[in-house]
């Protein structure tokens, strides 16, 4: 469980990036943190594994305060995949890249071997085991970065902008992957701008603006509130745009799921035909 209590954070340059943020993420939850550039999303999640320590307030991971321990020991429970895979890839082969963290955490050689095979298989990278990560495409590098974190099986997984630079098929794979992880009881936090991706996943949405949380709740309630999204520089998902513009009193406004939208519209059409 992640507990954030009235956290303030200022960078050395004096910029106050977080101005009193409180948040609880329960075990097994799937949370999307959204908001415009500079809202403090990445700053907030960097507190979850202790990369940043709050200037005021408290962050606890399973009742351990992040100021009382090291990033390395927090990282065992909190896996953090950075936005740009090029900021972490450095090994000669994909295999070694994945082994890096496992060695840091002191796993036995046989365990490392098994974990590598498992992670490569999970992300469809088995064929690249002996390839240099620098030879891979952008999407594949991103998956290697993800595999290198998943390999130690952290309970909490943080993904910073996971959909950037991914084509539709990869996004769909990522979505199914996240769902699978969640069904296995892992806690997942994503930071993203990708409103359609969030609409499809339908997680709990935390909306941030200027270092504060401005909304926290179900995706279908927050992503269908035009006034709220307007001030956060986010557009409504396409489904929600249709439902707000349709002006049919019998249709609900808070719809973001494609399947639900299809059912509602079909029902409406059938009723009209019958009349």
């Amino acid at each position, binding site marked *: 469980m992640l507990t954030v209590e009235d956290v303030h954070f200022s960078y050395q340059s004096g910029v106050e990036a977080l101005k009193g943020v409180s948040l609880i993420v329960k075990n097994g939850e799937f949370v999307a943190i959204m908001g415009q550039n500079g809202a403090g999303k990445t700053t907030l999640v960097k507190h979850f594994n202790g990369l940043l320590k709050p200037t005021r307030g408290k962050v606890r991971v399973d009742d351990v305060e992040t100021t009382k321990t090291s990033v390395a020991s927090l*990282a065992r429970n909190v896996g953090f995949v950075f936005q740009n895979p*090029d*900021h*972490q890839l*450095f090994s000669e082969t994909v295999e070694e890249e994945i082994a*890096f963290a496992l060695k840091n955490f002191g796993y036995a050689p046989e365990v490392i071997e098994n974990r590598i095979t498992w992670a490569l298989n999970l992300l469809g990278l088995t064929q690249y085991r002996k390839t240099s990560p620098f030879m891979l495409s952008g999407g594949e590098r991103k998956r290697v970065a993800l595999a290198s974190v998943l390999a130690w099986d952290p309970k909490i997984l943080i993904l910073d902008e996971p959909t950037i630079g991914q084509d539709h098929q990869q996004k769909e794979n990522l979505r199914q992957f996240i769902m699978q992880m969640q069904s296995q009881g892992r806690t997942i936090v994503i930071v993203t701008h990708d409103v359609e991706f969030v609409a499809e996943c339908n997680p709990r949405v935390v909306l941030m603006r200027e270092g504060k949380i401005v909304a926290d709740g179900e995706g279908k309630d927050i992503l269908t509130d035009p006034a709220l999204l307007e001030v956060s520089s986010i557009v409504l998902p396409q489904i929600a745009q249709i439902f707000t513009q349709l002006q049919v009193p019998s249709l609900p406004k808070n719809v973001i799921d494609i399947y639900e939208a299809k059912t509602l519209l079909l029902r409406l059409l059938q009723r009209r035909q019958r009349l």
Partner: protein
Amino acid sequence: MSVFDGLKFRKVYSPIHNLDPRMKFVYVIAIFAAAIAFYSVIPLLALFIFQIPFVLLARVQKQWLRSLRGATFLAAFIFLVNLAGNFFTQNYTLTVANVETAAAMTLRFVVLVESFSVFFLTTSPDHLGLALEQSRVPYEFSFAFTTAVRFVPVLAEEAQTIMDAQKARGLELEKGNFMKRIRNYIPILIPLIVSAIRRSLELAEAMESRAWGATKKRTNLYALKLHKGDFALLGIIIGILILTVYVYFYVPIPTVRSFFGYP
């Protein structure tokens, strides 16, 4: 990365910021020459104190202090190396004179850092490039120079991100013996170098697509001109040089230790 913070330009208006970068550079060279000329604590200390009004006038004291703090490690290293060098070459004796020489060498380094820091903190990379161009340096070189200066803070920021990414994968930089600690930096250096190379290639493409080098004779929106303040600085520079030469040849410099009765 705090050393780089001391070199990061911020746009502020002050009498020092408005000076011609060429004259400021001559000033740095003059301080440099004066610092190299002396071997003892008192004149170097004078040079150090002499520059503080410039820092205050430019209102960059905070960043300047940070750059000095960043240089402490290297300063300590210089002090120890000098001390050890004298210690081992002079029959393993540690004298007050040796300590004072080591202190002077360290102070000399600090003076150099101080003047460079003031120069870079108060000169925008654009002005610097302009100054080089107007000093008839070929544009290719002046461009390469300004680009290098401009990318220092970008690289520093990137290094920080990479460090965070590797720490998140359990890397502990401060762990292990001396050799292990050096090896700990490999996961940071490789991504940093790879991305620097990639960035330079991208920059080259972006420049070419914007017709870099299409005309031989470039014109500039701004031209640098010397103003009153620049001539005042020129006066100060000449003063420093004359004083340095005079003191160097005609004034016997007392040592600090002589005030305390040491030989």
